[in-house]
């Protein structure tokens, strides 16, 4: 085969796979939303469903939760980012690790942990009642907002730290030289310049909140606070000829909401003055005296303690007490629940399923994503660009919407629906873009001259990749693959709709225990899951260090 015809063949194959795996499921979802059970085209169902009071309430709840929790995440995330990026507080490394913890700890574990801490008759609520504030019921709209706010702090924090460090310190200095006080120069000069980046970043938290399924599923279904994602879930697992069509209609509503938000975000970001190429200046700009510094360090510890540490402690303590809600006294302590879940066959199978799925997903994404990034770099390949955009779409859309689309598309195929393979397909469809972006960034960090220098020195293409390019890319590529593996192994949204009767993921196992009232067991599995994630992270870091030592 000639080079040219081979290129055409590869292009056609990529286009076909993209259409089949990424586009057709969404197309079928759209079709489902405008047809009835007999396959006729109709908008009547859509009109009546949208007019329903419950639909409107779910939409309204979704928006309120997203807006308020985003505002909360922005305030906390920005404060922590300011401390880390600009001040001379100590222990920044540990504070950063703590802040980023919810990035890898699944949100259902955080919701369960908060549920433990704020259980209606628990100690915290007794104190709150005594203070005249409580009792606080986490199983409510405000409980969902509160939990989600904490979960999305890392999103805000990550982009804020980068953005703050990129603002040249001279911008503020120049303003102060002109006679502006520190405070005024922030409002007159700094704020207008960072506002687009700030709003654009905040939209990330908004999108994540709209997408989130597990927190409203745990805290909102039993207490009758519907949001679009849980309402879709309820419709999809419901009975009746119209159930799937209703779920599809709601999915379209949610998808439109998300796509509008994403479009607005892109528009805002385009006006940003903080560009990718700007240098990150990590040196502190605010030098506190030791006494003041200790106050700020304390404040960070209080914030992170409240938001991240204490709920996790409550989770572990509840898992280690004889019955749920028992006072945390030494005589009530037991390892019984841990033993139960560790020896339980179902839990073990679920864990193995999740780990296997995570590994397979990460490896497939690593191979395909890197291949896509490399092809894009080596030349203008239209079909690969198409694949990237399709993969962005399946990531931008809420997980529950994607899950439904995948049911419609793959559900009719024998040997796929109800097996572990539909989950693998769903995970790759969802997470592929993360690896494409990661590998792209890894490649972009290598100057063309660095590869050209190797070529001039006489290295063949294969040698250049093996000796120069891959070692330089490995760390960033690995980081993306690791993040995909963590996300896939703790995933709940996709598996809640896609897993068949015989397949359970660890997320589903915890969800099932919690729904079934086995709170102590759910706590025990959650605690073990957090420990496994922490262990996995440490192992990955140690492995990375070992490899880089060997390379050197």
């Amino acid at each position: 085969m000639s080079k040219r015809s081979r290129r055409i063949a590869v292009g056609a194959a990529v286009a076909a796979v993209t259409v089949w795996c990424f586009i057709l499921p969404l197309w079928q979802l759209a079709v489902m939303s405008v047809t009835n059970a007999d396959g006729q085209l109709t908008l009547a169902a859509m009109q009546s469903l949208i007019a329903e009071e419950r639909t409107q309430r779910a939409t309204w709840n979704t928006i309120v939760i997203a807006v308020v929790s985003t505002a909360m995440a922005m305030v906390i995330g920005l404060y922590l980012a300011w401390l880390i990026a600009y001040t001379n507080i100590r222990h920044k490394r540990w504070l950063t690790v703590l802040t980023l913890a919810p990035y890898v700890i699944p949100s259902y574990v955080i919701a369960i942990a908060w549920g433990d801490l704020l259980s209606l008759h628990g100690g915290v609520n007794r104190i709150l009642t005594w203070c005249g504030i409580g009792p606080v019921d986490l199983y409510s709209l405000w409980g969902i907002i509160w939990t989600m706010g904490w979960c999305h702090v890392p999103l805000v924090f990550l982009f804020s730290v980068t953005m703050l460090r990129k603002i040249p310190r001279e911008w503020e200095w120049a303003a102060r030289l002109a006679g502006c006080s520190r405070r005024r120069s922030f409002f007159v000069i700094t704020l207008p310049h960072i506002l687009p980046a700030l709003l654009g970043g905040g939209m990330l938290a908004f999108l994540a909140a709209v997408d989130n399924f597990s927190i409203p599923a745990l805290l909102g279904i039993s207490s009758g606070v519907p949001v679009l994602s849980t309402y879709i879930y309820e419709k999809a697992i419901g009975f009746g000829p119209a159930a799937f069509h209703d779920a599809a209609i709601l999915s379209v509503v949610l998808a439109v909401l998300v796509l509008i938000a994403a479009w607005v975000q892109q528009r805002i970001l385009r006006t940003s003055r903080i560009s990718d190429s700007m240098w990150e200046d990590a040196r502190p700009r605010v030098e506190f005296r030791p006494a003041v510094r200790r106050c700020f360090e304390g404040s960070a510890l209080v914030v992170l303690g409240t938001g991240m540490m204490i709920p996790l402690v409550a989770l572990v303590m509840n898992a280690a007490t004889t019955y749920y809600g028992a006072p945390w006294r030494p005589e009530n302590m037991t390892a019984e629940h841990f033993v139960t879940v560790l020896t339980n066959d179902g839990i073990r199978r679920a864990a193995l399923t999740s780990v296997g799925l995570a590994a397979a997903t990460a490896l497939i994404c690593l191979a395909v994503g890197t291949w896509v990034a490399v092809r894009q770099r080596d030349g203008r390949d239209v079909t690969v660009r198409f694949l990237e955009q399709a993969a962005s779409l399946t990531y931008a859309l809420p997980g529950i919407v994607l899950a439904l689309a995948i049911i419609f598309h793959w559900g009719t195929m024998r040997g796929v629906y109800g097996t572990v393979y539909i989950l693998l397909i769903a995970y790759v469809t969802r997470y592929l873009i993360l690896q494409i972006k990661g590998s792209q960034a890894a490649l972009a960090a290598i100057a063309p001259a660095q590869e050209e220098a190797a070529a001039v020195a006489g290295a063949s293409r294969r040698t250049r990749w093996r000796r120069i390019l891959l070692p330089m890319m490995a760390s960033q590529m690995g980081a993306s693959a690791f993040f995909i593996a963590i996300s896939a192994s703790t995933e709940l949204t996709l598996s809640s709709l896609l897993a068949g009767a015989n397949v359970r993921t660890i997320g589903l196992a915890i969800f099932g225990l919690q729904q079934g009232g086995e709170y102590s067991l759910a706590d025990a599995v959650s605690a073990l899951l957090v420990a496994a994630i922490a262990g996995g992270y440490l192992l990955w870091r140690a492995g990375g260090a070992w490899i880089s030592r060997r390379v050197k």
Partner: protein
Amino acid sequence: MQLTIEGLRKEYGEVTAIRALDLEIASGEFLAIVGPSGCGKTTLLRLLGGFERPTAGQITADGELIGDAEYTRPIETRNWGMVFQSFALWPLLTVREHVEFPLQMRGVSSQERTRRADEVMATLGIASLAERHPAALSGGQKQRVALARAIVAKPRVLLMDEPLSALDAELKLSMREEIKQVHRLTGATVIYVTHDQEEAMAMADRLLVMKDGAAEQIDTPERIYHRPATCFAATFVGKYTLVEGRWEGERFIPKPAPSLCWRGDVAPALRAQGVYPVRPDQWEWADDGIAGRVLHRQYLGREYSYRVAVGDEIWTVRAADGPAEGAAVCLRYRG
């Protein structure tokens, strides 16, 4: 404004950026701070501006304390100006808004602002750019806007942090003159940081030569060029070759040619090191003297620059014309 620096010291953790510095800067003086990168010159400028806090020592302006380890007088209350190496223009503001900004912050009426901004922009030749944003300006134009913003409020002290290092060679020369012009017009005390000793000598009333966070020499450019006080000042500013030898009272016996005997006004620090400073242009070719061999020859236009191996060392010689590469030569000090 007259500035006094006493016992100034700045540490970043383990690293000492400034070691015990004392300095008097007269009102209206143009002081250039020169030194290699990492010598502490930018740190000194930041300490003067109050952007950082000294570890010890104090800075006073016209007798009033403006900065020590405990207290920093906020820069916004001082009426100083500064030009940054990166220019630090604000992307969202137009050229006119930049120039008017310091006046606006000081509550100058809008009419007066327009008048004074027009005046400064006309002086610096950027009046036609008034409505542009920084993204639409060239390097030289950005430089002028930064300068206009720094001087429009008639600052008493003007700090400049390598303001010309981002410009090309041609533009550097013309901007030197404009900065001198601005200095004459405003009468501000100028403190000018650069790593380019030629630029410093061309512009300043006095030079402060710094190395490893300490002052090596503070004097007029002419004095530093002709009578360097330390080995570093000699090699960094005047590009001197330090000829090793032996001092016997006022007489110097160079080691490569012990039969010779030189005299001259050489600073004690160099005498103590047993060296005699000779600038590249102070050599001439001769039939006898210090023997060497030409390694390289560069044509500079009016003259040649030679690299001559003498013993284990390589000296720089500037001369109108002379031997080819590889030739054996004799050098004579012509004073």
